[in-house]
């Protein structure tokens, strides 16, 4: 995580991706605890103070992006995540829909003492 954004590497494909601040916060949330798409949307709505229908559409689109990039796998949620970190952050003006950007593939990295 750098300045609220994030860089992710897919360890099998060596592709690397960037996440904007709202995408990075959803990603952190998913890393911490498994959630259903509905829970992600509710959390997004509460955190960024956006309308529930907007949050639902944007969360759904973002989760599909992650799944297409094979960064997310469907599973079962054992229990609902704690709602402790749904403190609103920033203003609606600053909010941008969560986004995943594929930058490219990593090549062999060369180390040298020269």
């Amino acid at each position, binding site marked *: 995580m*750098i300045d609220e*954004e994030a*860089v992710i*590497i897919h*360890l099998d494909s*060596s592709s*690397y991706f*960037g996440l*904007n601040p709202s995408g990075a916060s959803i990603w952190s949330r998913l890393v911490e605890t498994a959630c259903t798409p509905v829970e992600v949307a509710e959390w997004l709505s509460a955190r960024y103070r956006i309308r529930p229908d907007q949050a639902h559409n944007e969360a759904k689109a973002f989760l599909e992006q992650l799944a297409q990039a094979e960064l997310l796998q469907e599973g079962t949620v054992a229990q609902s995540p704690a709602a402790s970190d749904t403190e609103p952050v920033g203003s609606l003006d600053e909010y941008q829909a969560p986004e995943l*950007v594929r*930058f*490219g593939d*990593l*090549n*062999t*990295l*060369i*180390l*040298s*003492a*020269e």
Partner: protein
Amino acid sequence: MNPAGAKRIAQDLQLLCSARLRSVRFHGLSMSPFLKEGDRVTVEPVCWEDIKRGDIVTYRCEAKYPTRRVVSKRRDRLLLWCDNWPALRFTMARTDLLGRVVMVERDGKLLHHRDPEWLAVRRRALAMYRRSVLALARRRLKRLAGSLLRAPRRVRTG
């Protein structure tokens, strides 16, 4: 995030995930014969406190990832050298450290940083460093002694 910044961060992560990605290689002759051109290298994140003299560390230097042996450790920086270039010294700030080399693969053979062969090379490198420091000190003393002998003598008159 701009693509260049993202690539830089991804490369740092690639280095620190080198055990899994297996896509990090060594280039050049500077650490020969221990590290050779094309060796596959595994780097792991390391705490500053755990770095010891003789370790081989990788750090960030602009767009490059220098990989050298630690010969001396200070509070916030390391003094490094290359096994094959004993006359040169390099310094590295604590904030630039990325990780420590823990495994090398050459022609299908793996060498781990706790293997006796690795530790023997490490001991030899540190002994060579000590000898080079002593040789340098001797040269400086010799130069100092030479300049004292050549100094003109003052003659008191009157």
